[in-house]
């Protein structure tokens, strides 16, 4: 067995960092930092998972192939999210009617404005 043996002290260090970051996430959620609050919460979560993947799951000490597999999983997930949200976030980009009064707008309006009303 050539598995890399990691000293227990590293595990305790990562553990303490994870707990600390959890406290920070909760604290930050109660500060009004406007639109930043979602990216900050997500950023901390990403950082925490990276720690778990690299140290608890030994990817840092594993082969490059494992690293490639992990990244591939998250890259394809990002593709799914980005393209799906691209559709939602561009539905309002409709061309306004010009002077002739002919609307070039897409004929689709399924009442998706509801999100705006709630904001």
């Amino acid at each position, binding site marked *: 067995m050539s598995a890399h043996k990691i000293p227990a002290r590293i595990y*305790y260090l990562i553990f303490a960092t994870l707990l600390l970051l959890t406290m920070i996430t909760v604290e930050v959620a109660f500060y009004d930092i406007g639109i930043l609050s979602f990216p900050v919460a997500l950023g901390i979560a990403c950082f925490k998972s990276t720690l778990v993947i690299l140290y608890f799951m030994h990817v840092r000490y594993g082969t490059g192939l494992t690293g490639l597999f992990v990244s591939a999983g998250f890259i394809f997930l990002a593709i799914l999210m980005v393209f799906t*949200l691209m559709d939602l976030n561009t539905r309002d980009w409709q061309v306004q009617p010009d002077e002739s009064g002919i609307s070039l707008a897409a004929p689709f309006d399924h009442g998706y404005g509801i999100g705006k009303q709630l904001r």
Partner: protein
Amino acid sequence: MSEAHSGLVAHQFETAEQQRETANLGMWSFLITEVMMFGALFTAYGFYRTKYPAAFAAGSDHLDYLMGAFNTAVLICSSLTMALAVQAAQHGKRKGIILFLLLTILLGGVFLGVKVLEYADKYEHHLIPGIHFSVDSSYAAQIELFYCFYFAMTGLHALHMIVGITILGILVALSHRRRFSTDYYNPVEMAGLYWHFVDIVWIFLFPLLYLIGRS
């Protein structure tokens, strides 16, 4: 047949090293499918959260963030004990494996216990979508949508916890019968990867479900 074909190496492999690497890659491939499965739910969640931000914030307000935070801490502790169980296996410490696996199971049990309390609370407050839902709000349907995702995501996560606890229980029994050694502990290592993955899912679920619009 290679000399390495002792009882611990399956017939299709040449060496124990090849078997271990194969198991590892197989587990990671499985975790990719898990990432995509939860990822699809996260995508749908993100879609509706973008569409109905106020409703999602209102829905999140009904959740008890302290219980969520407590559960996050419990899961992080369980990840530590799981990592220590794998480490004990690497060093061939049988009692260490059993002790840390039992601790992990215990912490997993605590997590599920808190989850049951939370679900019961949701039932009392009529927040079970489809079956038992009523909210006094002009956009109740959108809040119900938030709770659909709350139950779908935490439910799927809890299901993974239950499966994980079962696997760990089997490993305790196997370890008790001295099935693992420094030469062979693949199952403990693979179960560890699975458990940490389930922890990661919760690391994302907690801020996304419990901490919207708290400021």
